[in-house]
């Protein structure tokens, strides 16, 4: 039996919804079908079933209707037409009180911008669903603590959300949903507001938790990488319609139409993967004002031969090697300024595809530096990392590619 069944679901904003639904029924594009009507169609004839324990990803660009769709699955938005069945219960005809009960017991949600309550502590936020359910305080606390433990945030329980970094806040959002103990989890662009490295870290954490808990997850994203990485199955949405549902591999190898084909264009996997998705956290980064002794210590501790140097505003300046550190020490200079070289390292941006990394990697003497739009160093790519990412991205295992990358750990860092 399916955990969630959606049939012929429509959401029309504006008036004359009946007429709009009738005109859309034969599959014409929405702009053409609704010309002259004071209505816009956000979701058109959506049909799918989600199996218990799977991660079902809905992927589409902004305006494709995916956020509207997910909000109809727990009744935050009332569908115009069609049926949503959760665990066999038809949701669209429920009265408000019954709908609230269903939300408490069956479905919880994680939001794009975290939607934590700024005036409540992390623990109180995590226990919110239990408070709504009317549990006694002690039990609430215990279960909220359990949920925080799952996401590794117990030490922050008594802080306000403001004290936490974006990644940590979203882990509180996740803990809040997990503490509710519902079978189904709706995740609306849950990781889209996070930095690439943090995003991957929390994706991993979700996959780990999922392996343990086996929730039914409906995950909305506009990011193909994320969809491929997380989804057991993926639904691709365009202009309000679902154009294809399938596994990552099915969508890559057998796109339903030109749009999907274009979307996954030349996925030759090296193009799905970006620099951001294979990079590692840079081991040794020093400010340019650091002294050569500090650099020497850093080199010794990391057993590497190169230190990455940043300047004001964390802008990447270049590298310093053992030889230069030695020279600086001998010449008795107070800091590294003047010894930094840009010759031996190539730089790329986070969205550079892996396919475009080969040349840089070959020519760069040290691991390639990945910079963000403000030239700050956000990661490095050693050759071996690139190679192992490629080796795993054989056509048989299209979603395994990124697992080779060593991750930063799951603790995260405070704001």
């Amino acid at each position: 039996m399916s955990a969630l069944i959606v049939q012929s679901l429509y959401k029309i904003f504006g008036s004359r919804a009946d007429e709009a639904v009738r005109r859309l029924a034969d599959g014409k594009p929405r702009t053409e079908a609704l010309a002259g009507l004071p209505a816009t169609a956000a979701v058109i004839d959506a049909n799918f079933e989600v199996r218990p324990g799977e991660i079902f990803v809905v992927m589409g660009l902004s305006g494709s209707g995916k956020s509207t769709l997910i909000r109809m699955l727990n009744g935050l938005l009332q569908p115009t037409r069609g049926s949503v069945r959760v665990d066999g219960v038809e949701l669209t005809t429920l009265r408000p009180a019954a709908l609230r009960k269903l939300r408490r017991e069956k479905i919880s949600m994680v939001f794009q911008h975290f939607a934590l309550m700024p005036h409540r502590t992390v623990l109180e936020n995590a226990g919110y669903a239990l408070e709504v359910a009317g549990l006694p305080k002690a039990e609430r606390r215990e279960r909220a603590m359990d949920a925080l433990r799952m996401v590794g945030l117990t030490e922050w329980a008594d802080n306000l959300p403001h004290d936490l970094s974006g990644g940590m806040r979203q882990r509180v959002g996740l803990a809040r949903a997990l503490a509710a103990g519902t079978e189904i989890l709706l995740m609306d662009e849950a990781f889209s507001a996070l930095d690439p490295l943090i995003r991957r870290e929390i994706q991993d954490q979700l996959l780990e938790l999922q392996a343990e808990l086996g929730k039914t997850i409906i995950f909305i994203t506009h990011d193909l990488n994320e969809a491929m990485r997380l989804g057991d199955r993926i639904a691709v949405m365009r202009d309000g319609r679902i154009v294809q549902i399938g596994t990552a591999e099915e969508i890559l190898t057998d796109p339903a139409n030109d749009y999907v084909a274009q979307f996954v264009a030349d996925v030759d996997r090296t193009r799905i993967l970006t620099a951001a998705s294979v990079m590692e956290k840079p081991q040794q980064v020093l400010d340019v004002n650091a002294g050569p002794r500090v650099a020497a210590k850093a080199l010794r501790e990391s057993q590497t031969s190169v230190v990455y140097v940043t300047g004001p505003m964390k802008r990447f300046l270049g590298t310093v090697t053992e030889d230069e550190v030695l020279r600086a020490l001998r010449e008795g200079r107070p800091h590294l300024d003047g010894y930094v070289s840009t010759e031996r390292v190539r730089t790329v941006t986070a969205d550079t595809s892996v396919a475009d990394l080969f040349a840089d990697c070959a020519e760069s003497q040290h691991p390639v530096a990945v910079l963000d739009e403000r030239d700050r160093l956000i990661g490095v790519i050693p050759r071996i990392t690139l190679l192992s990412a490629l080796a795993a991205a054989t056509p048989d295992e299209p979603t395994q590619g990124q697992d080779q990358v060593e991750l930063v750990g799951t603790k995260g860092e405070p704001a």
Partner: protein
Amino acid sequence: MSRTQSPLDSWLPRVPLGAWTESAVDWATATLGPFFDGVAAVVEALVRPLNDLLTGVPAVVVVLVLAGLGWWLRGWKFALGTALGLGLVAGMPYWEETMSTLAQVLVASTLALLMAIPLGVLVAENKRASAVARPVLDLMQTMPAFVYLIPAIFFFGIGTVPGVLATLVFSMPPGVRLTELGLRQVDKEIVQAAESFGAPPWMVLLRTKLPLALPTIMTGVNQVIMLALSMVVIAGMVGAGGLGDVIMFALSQVEVGSGFEGGIAVVILAVVLDRLTDSAGDRFPSARAQRLARQAA
């Protein structure tokens, strides 16, 4: 008053709005008399004891209590300023009048807020109520303050009660408006989050929306008190007593000295009340959390 009419305007109908208003007020006076008597009794019962208390205790006690409150809310500098300012007032001949003005302001603004905040909640939650309330609030705010005194005299005669009630009406609108604004500004996603976990509407309102709207609502409280203070002086015209009387008398006798003394007492009272209510808002944890969040962003 009449004016010479151009032949071009002769087709315009005469609208006897004034006459209608008069007959409406006449009707209300005749039929709602007992109701107005009841209202008057309640207001009287609130103002009189407070007035007696504030004028009954020695001025030093009042000064120290307000300075202590200032210390707690804002720190020693403000406490010192409060003590000096109110000390100056106590040293002038109008301490009793200042205290009865304070009593009237406190009663009028408390009653105004008791109506304004629930009304603001209603208006924020209900589009139709908002559409009705908006023009009424506009009218209440732009109507010249003196005009409120006329029906007040009709309904309640001369004295403190019509003064307090006219003040109440005049000072209420920003309380409603800022409550509505504060509630509407609460992050939609946070409200949705509360709803998505099955919280019933009252819980969303009391535990999510109101705490998050509190800083804006407190601005409304501050505005209501300030408007009440400005109106309570005008209410001196209907014999409400207090500093209004002092200033009206000075005006009619062209006495610069006592007029200035009364005016300074109003200013000092205004500054103290403004700063006290302004910082009271900051003491709520939700206000602090939001300020921190804004600083971080």
